[in-house]
């Protein structure tokens, strides 16, 4: 028989040989992947008119390139770079921000804000990644009793932005206040193309439990989830440079008394009206056939459709991950108990003690698994949920653009008809009707021009909003992933502590 030694490939080496101190994984170098970029295809780099930026791609300079930038490049990219780079970027001439931005805090303020220049100014003031406002939602407190009870949350703002009266202040708000804020912002900004972050969802079931006074695990979890969601909602809202300056937002954050937002109740007439409108909108959307002249929009819409599907799938994956981990936790707990029993029946004292210690270690590890499962769930699941809702808002904004286009087209067609009618009138002898027609035509011409301007404006706004959204999305996912990795680090550190404590017990067996 062959006595020849046939060594298996190193990856599959006998696991026990590991004890010889063999390291099958080379320790990762500090930045092994950064040699990668040089070999990546140049097609990923947009053919940007900013020449110098392209060279810096292959350095380790943390530069962002926006492939989507097309005709906006010449006007906007300098500002964008100020937002993106976290350090001085040699390729960009720095733009000195204006010393102050005067924000007219009056009713029709938004007219001013839609002009191109002030938007840029607002962007400039943000500057870099150090966004100088932080909002915390805390101290949920039950107010009142029975079905009229509600949760009041403390909203604390810390900022050094000049648009606020103070540097640090807090107010008390309830859930319907948040919904009211969102509905005001939506009515002001959605139809001109701004992606207004959606408010957290209502939950009749969850809220009822709290109202009824059930003080258990699930209602505590519900309140915590809601608190966290409200905080994320506010932070997203103020991160938007235009929304931040909106008087409603400022009032929400600053003023101690807020008029009750009644029309946000789920089962109110206003709520029903909203639902009917939504349905009507959906029908309308299907009948609008827009002549898309801009490939960018078509492409983006498709991408958002895909992203929507993706995110829902990912949401499902996270759920299965959490399930698996909970199963592991259960089995670890069972084993821990079994090991404790075994330790009890072992009649060698030192071994018996070591086995009991092993049982304790496994119990602690079980707790670790549970905590990790929670982290998985909260971090990822909530984030994915937020984004599924945000995508809906994005899609809504695209729809508004279509509606704006439709309006423009409608006025154009009407103008055409009126012109034809006027031409006909020219051959009749009705001078006042003719004059009336001429007046109407003049008015319509104005409308058509306005319609075209509106359409161009919303298109421009959407482009900016979309690139802002994509940037924010990346930041969000990155920060969640980093938080998750940090939680994994903690888990491993705990594991090390537990096993290090156990090892001397095992060695003490004689």
């Amino acid at each position: 028989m062959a006595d020849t030694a046939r060594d298996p490939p190193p990856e599959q080496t006998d696991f026990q040989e590991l004890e010889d101190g063999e390291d099958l994984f080379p320790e990762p170098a500090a930045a092994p992947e950064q040699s990668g970029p040089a070999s990546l295809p140049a097609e990923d780099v947009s053919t940007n008119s900013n020449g110098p930026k392209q060279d810096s791609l292959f350095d380790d300079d943390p530069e962002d390139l926006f492939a989507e930038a097309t005709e906006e490049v010449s006007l906007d990219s300098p500002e964008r770079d100020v937002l993106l780079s976290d350090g001085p970027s040699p390729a960009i001439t720095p733009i000195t921000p204006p010393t102050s931005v005067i924000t007219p805090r009056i009713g029709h303020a938004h007219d001013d804000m839609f002009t191109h220049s002030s938007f840029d100014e607002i962007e400039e003031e943000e500057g870099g990644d150090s966004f100088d406002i932080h909002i915390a939602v805390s101290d949920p407190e039950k107010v009142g009793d029975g079905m009229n009870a509600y949760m009041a949350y403390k909203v604390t703002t810390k900022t050094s932005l000049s648009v606020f009266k103070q540097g640090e202040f807090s107010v008390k708000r309830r859930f319907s206040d948040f919904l009211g804020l969102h509905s005001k912002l939506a009515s002001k900004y959605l139809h001109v193309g701004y992606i207004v972050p959606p408010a957290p969802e209502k939950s009749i079931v969850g809220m009822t439990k709290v109202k009824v006074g059930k003080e258990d695990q699930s209602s505590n979890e519900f309140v915590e989830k809601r608190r966290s969601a409200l905080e994320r909602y506010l932070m997203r809202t103020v991160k938007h440079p235009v929304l931040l300056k909106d008087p409603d937002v400022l009032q929400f954050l600053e003023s101690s008394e807020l008029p009750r937002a009644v029309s946000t109740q789920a089962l109110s007439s206003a709520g029903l009206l909203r639902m009917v409108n939504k349905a009507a909108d959906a029908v309308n959307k299907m009948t609008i056939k827009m002549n898309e002249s801009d490939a960018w929009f078509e492409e983006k819409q498709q991408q958002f459709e895909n992203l929507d599907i993706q995110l829902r799938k990912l949401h499902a994956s996270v759920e299965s991950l959490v399930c698996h981990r909970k199963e592991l936790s259960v089995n670890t707990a069972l084993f821990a108990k079994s090991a404790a029993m075994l330790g009890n029946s072992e009649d060698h004292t030192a071994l018996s003690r070591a086995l009991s210690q092993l049982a304790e270690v496994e119990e602690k590890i079980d707790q670790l698994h549970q905590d990790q499962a929670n982290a998985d769930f909260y971090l990822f699941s909530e984030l994915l949920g937020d984004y599924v809702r945000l995508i809906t808002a994005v899609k809504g904004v695209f729809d508004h653009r279509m509606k704006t286009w439709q309006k423009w087209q409608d006025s154009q067609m009407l103008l055409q008809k009126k012109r034809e009618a006027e031409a006909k009138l020219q051959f009749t002898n009705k001078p006042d009707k003719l004059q009336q027609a001429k007046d109407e035509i003049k008015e319509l011409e104005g409308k058509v021009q306005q319609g075209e301007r509106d359409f161009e404006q919303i298109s421009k706004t959407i482009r900016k909003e979309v690139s802002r959204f994509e940037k924010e999305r990346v930041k969000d996912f990155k920060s969640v992933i980093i938080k998750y990795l940090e939680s994994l680090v903690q888990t491993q550190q705990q594991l090390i502590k537990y096993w290090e404590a156990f090892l001397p017990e095992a060695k003490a067996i004689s």
Partner: protein
Amino acid sequence: MMGYLSVSLQPRAVNVDLQTDATLQVDISDALSERDKVKFTVHTKSTLPNFKQSEFSVVRQHEEFIWLHDSFVENEDYAGYIIPPAPPRPDFDASREKLQKLGEGEGSMTKEEFTKMKQELEAEYLAIFKKTVAMHEVFLCRVAAHPVLRKDLNFHVFLEYNQDLSVRGKNKKEKLEDFFKNVVKSADGVLVAGVKDVDDFFEHEKTFLLEYHNRVKDASAKSDRMIRSHKSTHTTALLRILLHHYAYYCTTTAPLRILLFFLKVSELFEKTRKIEARVAADEDLKLADLLKYYLRESQAAKDLLYRRGRALVDYENANKALDKARAKNRDVLQAETSQQLCCHKFEKISESAKQELIDFKTRRVAAFRKNLVELAELELKHAKGNLQLLQSCLSVLKGDT
């Protein structure tokens, strides 16, 4: 897919701490896995005069190991010893099935996925293979280390006779006979166990072993379950999440930094996943296998106690018969001989049993100590490895942001 597999091995005492004795050293130096059987190359080095050569090898199959074990069990002379438990039958069915399914589904997955899964399944197959080799080896080593069993003639034949021993597996009839034998034995065992022993040592051992055996059984089952769920958790799912996101980005012309970010994170999870797989594998080896082995050994110890108990009952019955015979003054000589035989048998068993049980405890404590220490050391090593990977990746990622 797995036509055959051969692995070169070094001698190891997995769960047993055995003194290696120069007079007789046995190990399995090679093994070949064919379609439906495994062929072990049993290698012997000995200075004993019983053997024709000082070093030689033969090829044996699982059935021949069982034959050897059964011959020990059926040998009355060995009634007073803990017979080393027989190695479990090599069972590649589950692994083979998985590999077959993979082969069938080859068309439905990407080449990369296929190769990765194939590697994983092959590694699993290899691990099972190594385990079965180890268990067969431990059996032989235990026999070789036992002062009496090592001299057994069947054992020498097993080691030296370089032809097929023509031992066939049991046929249906024989298996049925075995089954009934076992039923009778366990019923008898209960009866025998009920008899209180005059000797404190054995009484204690009886109680202890009964409880211990049950608890080891439970712990073994629970550790298996825990390790199985450990294998199927976590980072694979999360990896898929990230790869999805990453793939999405690749389809859009995303900024380079973002691609790199996701690339780094998915590479990280690939590495941590490998470490997690090793953690599960090490737990399997150091914990699950240990418990399984002592499940079998404690059963063998219980069997010894049963035999002694049986002999005690026979002895007491023989005493009663002798008294009766003396009282009736009939067949006294016969009764006396019978009683003397029983007495002799019982005392012989008792004497060796005591030592065997003490040795069992020593071996058990040593094996647990070795494995628990190694388990803790490996867990620490992997946790530290994981930690290092995570921390270095985090510092790179944070530095970029």
